[in-house]
């Protein structure tokens, strides 16, 4: 299989404009003849569903929650990037493009990233018009802040709830289209399989999570906007139901899974406290604008932070990276936190934490300014930890947060399976090996509002699609196998709950395939994952029935898929012998301990093809070509 990225010709800055003109159009009167299935209504899915419906397509949209307003996107705190250059500080589309390619450690596709930067400005316009209440200055203009990995202030925000406000904007557009009849919304539905007919993605099988019925939905194209797979690590900052099921099921039907080992560890999360913990809470990266990160100079120094004098503190990021300081990219900040903790200089009861200290900025700016900037985050911290961060420094530690890997897509956001399109965190396209802060919201909305409305029309106009009905045998087969899987889970009657299996898997992955990875550890994980899977298939307990609301059953399906997918993630990490971005192979580092890329052997996208149960997946490589940005060792010194 050769992977055709379908990147149009011409200079990078003209590609999208040219492509928009070259793409075929669907006659307005014909659009309503096409049915589009959109799975997931987070930022990417809701914006796509609303925009496609506005164009006249018939949209069927699906989500897990009781309402599309509750997708995981709602939890994004810090902000969204756009190259508006309102600050007059030297920003431009080109600089955002450059920062994103560099931040991704040169493992993303230039043309996609350029388009993302280009569209970023339209997103802000669109959101403002919807009534998104971004932060403003006294003159009535929009305010900006800076974020890790950038030296300009290009991040737009709505207090610490940017994701909430953007999602409510997209949700309101979706509601407008539901009312207009263009979108039919199916909440509390879980996609269990993708249906391929005649080599094209033509529908899905879902479970109605209230009454358990298995439903088939047919259409002319399927869009997956089902988010990331960070929960494969069990403890993560992701919302509890985030899963890999939709994308993994599509992968089993032939869609390639790209760069699964590119997972992002966020440096500023509330540290783990105990065995019954169900998730980790992120403290927005924006806190690094005003908080200073430090640990004691001496290992084992157990004095309270207030008693450690200035000269006995190590502001290690400021020391090692004078030009970026506390604002180095996430992967760099995370690894450094791990390093100081591994050396015994970590703080808190477990020693697995570092301080994030606001003392100096409170002195400089006053408590009320800090409160206006981060009030809700401080409050959240206090609720969870029972400590007042205005008085004592926060304690933070890295946690799994985001997944750059995802289904492989071409420039049109279509996977190798014709008709299957993938948007938002679910695809692999724009962030390479490390995503910069405030760029996921940007990507989700760019994909949904401004890319798919064009490229999907092109797909419809250039292909003849035969009518397909949900009664077709391909649907019946998929329904049948979904039912069998469910019956299997219910019939096992073992001794261990889904959560316990999930935790076992998560601990293993975090240990062997987390912040740093090595060959022996990865090989060990590859031996142990099948053991957990084997035990799962014998000793799982799920009570209740298939035909009612059954949350354990829902989780069982998701964890079963995580158990298969995890093996691919580890395999990918093992095959990629270089370090890049969030993927740190201990065997490949510079003398200073920074990630060392190997551009000769690994300047490619690794796209994996499912080869069947028990068979090793097949690796396809899409070479990455850099015409604009010169490949260089990243430096934030």
């Amino acid at each position, binding site marked *: 299989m050769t992977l055709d990225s379908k990147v149009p010709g011409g200079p990078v800055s003209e590609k999208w404009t040219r492509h928009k003109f070259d793409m075929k159009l669907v006659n307005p009167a014909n659009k309503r003849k096409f049915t589009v299935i959109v799975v997931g209504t987070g930022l990417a899915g809701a914006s796509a569903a609303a925009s496609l419906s506005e164009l006249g397509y018939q949209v069927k949209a699906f989500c897990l929650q009781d309402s*599309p307003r509750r997708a995981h996107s709602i939890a994004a705190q810090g902000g969204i990037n756009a190259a508006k250059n309102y600050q007059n500080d030297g920003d431009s589309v080109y600089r955002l493009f450059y920062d994103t390619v560099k931040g991704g450690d040169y493992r993303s596709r230039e043309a996609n990233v350029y388009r993302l930067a280009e569209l970023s400005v339209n997103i802000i316009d669109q959101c403002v018009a919807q*009534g998104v209440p971004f932060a403003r200055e006294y003159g009535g203009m929009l305010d900006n802040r800076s974020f890790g990995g950038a030296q300009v202030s290009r991040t737009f925000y709505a207090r610490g*709830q940017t994701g*909430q406000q953007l999602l409510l904007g997209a949700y309101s557009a979706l509601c407008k289209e539901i009312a207009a009849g263009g979108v039919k919304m199916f909440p509390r539905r879980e996609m269990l399989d993708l249906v391929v007919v005649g080599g094209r993605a033509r529908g899905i099988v879902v479970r109605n999570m209230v009454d358990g019925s298995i439903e088939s939905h047919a259409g002319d194209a399927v869009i997956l906007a089902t988010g990331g797979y960070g929960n494969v690590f069990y403890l993560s900052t992701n919302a509890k139901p985030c899963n890999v099921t939709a994308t993994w099921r599509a992968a089993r039907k032939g869609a390639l899974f790209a760069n699964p080992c590119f997972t992002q560890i966020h440096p500023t999360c509330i540290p783990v406290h105990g065995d019954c913990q169900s998730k980790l809470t992120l403290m927005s990266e924006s806190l690094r604008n005003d908080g200073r990160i430090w640990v004691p100079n001496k290992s084992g120094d157990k004095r309270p932070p207030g008693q450690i004098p200035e000269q006995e503190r190590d502001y290690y990021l400021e020391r090692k990276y004078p030009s970026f300081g506390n604002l180095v990219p996430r992967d760099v900040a995370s690894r450094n936190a791990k390093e100081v903790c591994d050396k015994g200089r970590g703080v808190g009861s477990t020693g697995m934490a570092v301080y994030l200290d606001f003392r100096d900025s409170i002195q400089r700016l006053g408590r009320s300014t800090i409160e206006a900037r981060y009030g809700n985050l401080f409050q959240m911290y206090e609720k969870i930890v029972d400590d007042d961060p205005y008085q004592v420094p926060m304690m933070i530690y890295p946690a799994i947060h985001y997944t750059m890997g995802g289904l492989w897509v071409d420039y049109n956001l279509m996977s190798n399976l014709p008709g299957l399109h993938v948007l938002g965190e679910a695809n692999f396209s724009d962030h390479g090996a490390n995503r910069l802060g405030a760029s996921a919201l940007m990507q989700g909305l760019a994909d949904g509002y401004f890319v798919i409305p064009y490229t999907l029309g092109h797909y419809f106009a250039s292909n003849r699609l035969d009518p397909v009905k949900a009664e077709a045998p391909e649907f019946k087969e998929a329904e049948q196998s979904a039912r069998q899987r469910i019956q299997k889970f219910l019939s096992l009657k073992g001794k261990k709950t889904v959560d316990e299996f999930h935790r076992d898997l998560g601990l293993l992955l975090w240990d062997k395939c987390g912040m740093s990875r090595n060959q022996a550890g990865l090989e060990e994980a590859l031996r142990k994952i099948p053991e957990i899977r084997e035990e799962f298939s014998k000793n799982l307990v799920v009570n209740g029935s298939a035909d009612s609301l059954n949350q354990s059953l829902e989780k069982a399906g998701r964890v079963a898929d995580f158990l298969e997918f995890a093996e691919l993630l580890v395999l990918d990490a093992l095959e990629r012998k270089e370090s890049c971005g969030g993927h740190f192979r201990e065997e490949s580092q510079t003398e200073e301990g920074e990630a060392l890329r190997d551009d000769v052997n690994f300047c490619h996208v690794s796209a994996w093809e499912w080869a069947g149960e028990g068979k090793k997946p097949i690796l396809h490589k899409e070479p990455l070509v850099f015409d604009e940005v010169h490949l260089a060792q990243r430096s934030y010194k």
Partner: protein
Amino acid sequence: MANTINLTLKVWRQKSSDSPGAFEIYQAHDIDTDLSFLEMLDVVNINLEKNGKEPIAFDHDCREGICGCCGAMINGQAHGPEHGTTLCQLHVRKFRDGDTLVIEPWRSRAFPVVRDLIVDRSAFDRIIQAGGYVTVRTGSAPEAHSLPVPKIDADEAFDSAACIGCGACVAACPNASAVLFVGAKISHLALLPQGRVERERRARAMVERMDLEGFGNCSNHYECEAACPKEISVRNIARLNREFFRAFVKG
């Protein structure tokens, strides 16, 4: 060493919307006080599952107080005793060893029980569909800075837009009224120039839908504000009344 406490839980169990429900009693032993309320339920559920019983169903998603999924009445208080806090952000340390907690779903005609603590809040979605948006097509937006918005208005609009749609306001109201939820959305959009164009139509349509869904009337108890985990102010109700009146006058 972690502090632990014992709790007695009286939990509403109901298989489906059309089956009868009843309270069941469970003992939660040695619960680490640093756990969140939902993590405490997780622990109880693991035990239930291991003993061949069906776990307690409850809605939850973000567990960070922002998605609005979670919620239950704890001893008659929506989201429990801590002010300005969702159930997922409530921690066991707020309770005392030996406490008995009565845990029930939201009770309202407009929110039928789906199972155990899970209710159907789709009425809220339908109210937003009636008019809780600005009619702007993708691609038709003017440049963001073409219209300055006074900071005070933007901040106030944000305060209203911070609603997470959890339904605690309805659950806490003796009349099961939804005016705080509806008022918050109407205010958010009426405070911004972008939303003003359609304000009359919006107010009329959303209020009409709210009445149709079977929510009660507001008789100024203000229990809604007290229960709201996002501390949405009852001033939003006054604004709703104003907007509705304005729409009425304009015909």
